[in-house]
């Protein structure tokens, strides 16, 4: 008996190991793109001329090395999210890069060629202010880190702390910058706002305070950006109110106040309201900075100045100019300045820093993307050419987080769309038919068949067949033509014009909305960005909701998507309507939303142009319809009594249901209050609107049917206890009917806490929580059944449900942490379901839903075996073959999007986080297409063999008969 069970289970587990990847499928239908995020620091490796390294540290807490020739990643290290992984400073010397992480908590040194850590030291607590490399006698040996109240010096080769000193009067003085000119001293500069500057000198060897002085500066509020150290230790500050520059030698004892130089004497003026910025450069930390510096007077006005013998002389005025940056190669320092050329392009020129003279033939033309943002950062990589002149390449970062790497005379070497590192929401839209496909489809239109007679129909058929033949011939010709060309020149460039729906609708358009407000249209097959659109003036804390109002199925009406952009604080929203295939903004008039939007509702009601109606509910429970034509309003009036919606107010713990009235006002129907003192609502989820359930019930072992409770209005509400103590914390789940407000089921998981991830689909809810008692993740599954009979076999109505459903629940241990959870989705819902689990390791696990079945028996019986139920086991298995993305891990996976394809067996999957990964999964194997490894040769050879065998045996039989007849 037991061995039978074992054998059964083994065979079954073999059967269900279905969605594995075969090695030859690598890269066939999947792709991954890796991103780094918004660049905070970028340094070119100038250590050797041939080096291709570009080190970047980003706002996403990523430290990476890019290949500056291709833009690909050499390596990338993804730290913890949030302030604890925040990269405060990046310094580079030789082959090593020193990084200050987590508000000055950790100091790390990276070996940049391998991408491994050299050392890591923990610093004392205290908020980070500044860090600098310190050199002694032309050698960079130390790194100094300035905190709010202390300064420490570290050895660069081992990371060991040389000394740490408390700063004097740190509670009143704000120490902000650090400076070392290679003369054995470290200067710490602090400011008491609107009073004076404090300068403290430390000896490098032992941290002894050599000198401390304070200088009157009543006009100063902050040292950062308005001050810089130039020449041999001259502090230079700029103030926009007094319109002057101030200078002070850091080391001199006699000068006790700052010398004022009016900007007027230099014929300069700061634009009112703009904070002027000083930029100096110190090519070698063991030597004092150069005496040349940039002063930015307005957003588009820079000036290169020189400090000499206590005097400031302008070298060159750049008006207009957007960006300016210094770069050094060998002994020569140059300045690159970006100036506008015309409306769509900028020109970048190189000037020698010491004279301000322009280098000849160094112009780079940078073409601005009309759908993108303005450039806001310029990184220059200067190098010496063979003829000893200075060449350079630049990396431009724009507001929309595009990194463009250019070389002369304006060739784009590579481009990275770093906005995609922070995808907020996405949708997949079917591609449109081509003209010929649409023509064919049009033939089957309803109207045409009725109006035309038999003969025109036949003619139409013939003509469309002719068109098909023509298209096929054209295709053949193209194939032939391409084959003659060398392979390299035939590049499979994907453009919008040639995109059309494929046979099985496997290729779709991915619409991605990023946190920076940039929209992308990406081809799902290749990952090519087909269009991008930067929406300006997006608040950083906006939330987005993407709604597909009209799909591509309504030719000739263009598809239509609506993006609701909502400010998180004020709740005020705006709508952006666009065509998802071409990315163009629609000309449709958009309703103004003067009040905060609480809820949106996409109705199945369509207007005369086949666009689904979107309802927006504001904070006074008034409803705005979009589109709001007469036709729509009429339809809404007719159907108003059956339109319900719900609102969630998690701050008050209130769930409420409303019904639409004919005049587009609303009435409250039900209200459920979850006391906020005990628990808070974490998430509410309904079912996906495009989900199909194929079978109404499950066939049991005794041939009876257990019918599923398929309530389309069911909401799953997850709550978490406010008490975080591991003994008293709990996670609750409430299933509420969204129309009537009836609580269908309620379950509580004691000694559990979030984060809870859950999927609500068909008749089940799967949720994951942290068991704080046993310190492990647990899966729990709830399944709802109506019982052996359906109450109403034709239609489901929430209002007429006398019997509560039967609820089954089972829990399992999941031996790994979880980042995100989603379920596969197929066209008709026949294919078995899998759960896609995003793990922190970056893998996506495809877990068969069969393992999450509350009917898994503890004791195996004849009937359960008949039903193919796997015996209960407390621990969920994780197999490496179930990782759909093999070694293409997705860092910081935040969401998984699933979409059905035209093939029932195939579900399209997009995982996004820091990276984007697209693939297909086959939860029940590819039952509707021939397998990839289908042996055409064998089958055809067998067929031919049989054919010839018949021929030969026929001949032989004839001969034999003839012989017999002669006998």
């Amino acid at each position, binding site marked *: 008996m037991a061995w039978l069970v074992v054998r059964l289970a083994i065979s079954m587990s073999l059967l269900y190991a279905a969605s594995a990847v075969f090695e030859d499928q690598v890269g066939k239908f999947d792709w991954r793109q890796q991103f780094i995020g918004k660049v905070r620091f970028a340094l070119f490796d100038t250590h050797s001329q041939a080096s291709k390294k570009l080190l970047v540290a980003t706002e996403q807490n990523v430290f990476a090395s890019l290949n500056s020739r291709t833009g690909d990643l050499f390596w990338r290290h993804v730290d913890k999210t949030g302030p604890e992984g925040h990269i405060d400073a990046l310094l580079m010397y030789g082959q090593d890069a020193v990084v200050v992480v987590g508000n000055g908590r950790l100091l790390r040194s990276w070996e940049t060629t391998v991408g491994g850590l050299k050392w890591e030291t923990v610093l004392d607590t205290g908020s980070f202010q500044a860090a600098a490399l310190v050199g002694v006698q032309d050698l960079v040996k130390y790194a100094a880190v300035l905190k709010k109240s202390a300064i420490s010096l570290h050895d660069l080769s081992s990371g060991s702390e040389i000394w740490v000193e408390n700063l004097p009067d740190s509670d009143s003085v704000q120490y902000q910058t650090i400076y070392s000119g290679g003369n054995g001293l470290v200067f710490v500069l602090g400011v008491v706002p609107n009073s004076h500057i404090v300068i403290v000198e430390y000896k490098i060897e032992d941290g002894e305070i050599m000198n401390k002085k304070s200088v009157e500066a009543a006009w100063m509020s902050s040292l950062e950006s308005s001050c810089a150290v130039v020449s041999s230790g001259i502090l230079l500050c700029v103030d926009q109110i007094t319109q002057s520059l101030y200078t002070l030698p850091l080391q001199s004892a006699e000068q006790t106040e700052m010398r004022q130089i009016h900007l007027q004497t230099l014929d300069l003026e700061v634009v009112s309201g703009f904070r002027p910025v000083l930029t100096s450069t110190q090519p070698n930390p063991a030597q004092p900075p150069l005496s040349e510096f940039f002063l930015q007077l307005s957003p588009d006005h820079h000036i290169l100045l020189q400090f000499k013998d206590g005097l400031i002389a302008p070298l060159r005025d750049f008006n207009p100019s957007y960006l300016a940056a210094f770069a050094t190669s060998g002994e020569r320092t140059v300045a690159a300045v970006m100036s506008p050329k015309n409306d769509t392009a900028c020109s970048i020129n190189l000037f020698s820093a010491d004279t301000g003279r322009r280098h000849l033939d160094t112009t780079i033309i940078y073409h601005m993307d009309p759908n993108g943002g303005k450039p806001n950062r310029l990184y220059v990589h200067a190098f010496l050419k063979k003829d000893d002149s200075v060449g350079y390449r630049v990396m431009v970062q724009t507001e929309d987080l595009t990194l463009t790497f250019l070389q002369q005379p304006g060739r784009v070497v590579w481009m990275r769309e770093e906005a995609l590192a922070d995808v907020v929401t996405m949708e997949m839209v079917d591609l449109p038919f081509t003209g010929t496909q649409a023509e064919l489809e049009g033939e089957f239109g309803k109207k045409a068949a009725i109006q035309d007679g038999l003969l025109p129909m036949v003619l139409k058929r013939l003509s469309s067949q002719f068109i098909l033949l023509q298209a096929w011939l054209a295709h053949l010709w193209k194939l032939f033509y391409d084959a003659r060309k060398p392979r390299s020149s035939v590049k499979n460039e994907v453009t919008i014009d040639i995109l059309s729906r494929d046979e099985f609708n496997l290729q779709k358009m991915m619409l991605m909305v990023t946190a920076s407000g940039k929209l992308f249209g990406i081809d799902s097959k290749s990952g090519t960005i087909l269009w991008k659109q930067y929406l300006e003036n997006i608040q950083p804390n906006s939330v987005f909701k993407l709604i597909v109002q009209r799909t591509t199925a309504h030719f000739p009406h263009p598809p239509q998507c609506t993006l609701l952009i909502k400010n998180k604080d004020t709740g005020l929203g705006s709508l952006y309507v666009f065509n998802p295939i071409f990315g163009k903004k629609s000309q449709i008039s958009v309703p103004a939303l003067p009040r905060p939007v609480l809820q949106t509702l996409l109705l199945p009601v369509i207007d005369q142009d086949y666009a689904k109606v979107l309802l927006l509910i504001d904070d006074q429970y008034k409803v705005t319809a979009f589109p709001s034509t007469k036709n729509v309003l009429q339809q809404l009036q007719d159907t108003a009594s059956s339109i319900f919606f719900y609102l969630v107010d998690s701050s008050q713990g209130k769930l409420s249901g409303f019904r639409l009235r004919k005049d587009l006002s609303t009435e409250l129907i039900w209200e459920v209050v979850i006391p906020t003192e005990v628990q808070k609502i974490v998430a509410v989820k309904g079912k996906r609107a495009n989900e199909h359930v194929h079978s109404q019930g499950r066939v049991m072992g005794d041939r009876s049917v257990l019918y599923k409770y398929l309530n389309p209005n069911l909401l799953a509400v997850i709550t978490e206890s406010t008490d975080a103590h591991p003994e008293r914390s709990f996670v609750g789940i409430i299933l509420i009917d969204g129309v009537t407000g009836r609580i269908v089921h309620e379950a509580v998981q004691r000694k559990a806490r979030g984060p809870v991830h859950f999927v609500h689909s068909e008749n089940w809810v799967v949720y994951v929580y942290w068991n704080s008692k046993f310190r492990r993740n647990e899966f729990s599954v709830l399944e709802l059944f109506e019982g052996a009979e359906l109450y109403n076999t034709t239609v489901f109505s929430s209002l007429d449900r006398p019997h509560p459903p039967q609820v089954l629940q089972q829990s399992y241990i999941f031996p790994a*942490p979880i980042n995100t959870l989603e379920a596969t989705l197929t066209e008709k819902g026949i294919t078995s379901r899998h759960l896609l689990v995003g793990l922190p390791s970056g893998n996506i696990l495809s877990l068969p839903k069969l393992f999450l079945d509350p009917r898994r028996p503890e004791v195996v019986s004849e009937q359960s075996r008949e039903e193919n139920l796997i015996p209960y086991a407390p621990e969920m298995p994780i197999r490496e073959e179930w990782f759909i993305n093999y070694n293409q891990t997705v860092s910081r996976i935040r969401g998984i999007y699933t979409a059905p394809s035209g093939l029932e067996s195939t579900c399209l999957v997009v995982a996004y986080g820091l990276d984007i990964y697209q693939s297909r999964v086959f939860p029940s194997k590819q039952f509707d297409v021939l397998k990839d490894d289908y042996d055409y040769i064998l089958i055809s050879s067998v067929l031919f063999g049989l054919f010839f065998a018949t021929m030969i045996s026929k001949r032989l039989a004839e001969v034999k008969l003839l012989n017999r007849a002669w006998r």
Partner: protein
Amino acid sequence: MQQMKRLLVVYVALQALFALSWCFSDAEPGPAAGSQSNGDRFKIEGRAIVPGVKTQDWISTARILVEGEEYVGFLKTDGSFAVNDVPSGSYVVEIVSPSFRFDPVRVDITSKGKMRARLVNYIKTSEVIRQPYPLQIRSSGPHTYFMKRETWGWTDFLMNPMVMMMVLPLLIIVLLPKVVNTNDPEMRKEMEQSMNMLNPNPELPDVSEFMTKLFSKGSSKSSGGNKGSRSVAPKRR
């Protein structure tokens, strides 16, 4: 599977034990909740080894994850690692690498900073099977992400039960008449007898007879019948 079943048994049997054992472990290493008491921060140290592979080939893609992504550490160029700033508690430490597999280890840190490492057991969470600390995590080889394709070979084909079922009777049909001398009248008698034994009801039409009748009709003009085909054989000789 057997393991699953055993686990199940263990699980049920140890249900009662849990409460008891929990008390012990609760007092000793201190649960994760101990982190709330704003105490010292500690360092989890160890070394990761991939036998036969140079460290620089894999460390740039690997990370150390402590309890999911709660604390993150990176590998040094010699394969050692240290995760700083970890408060006292019990954590699962895992090295994640897209190429190599490492087994996770549970590390307990007391509020005084005492460390111990043990095997991760999610079912018997309080079971202690000591592991060395500082951690020594040896890779158990590369990940096996891919399923093997079923390759087609002659042996597979021949060993297929369906093929065997077809081939063996064929061999018997072809070879047996040659081995057994059918001309021997005694033998024939014996065979007929055995045939009769097999066919207990002589009234019932024999299926094979029926079939041969059906097929022989079309192909040959000879008199047909079961005897016919049999009588042809001796004629031919």
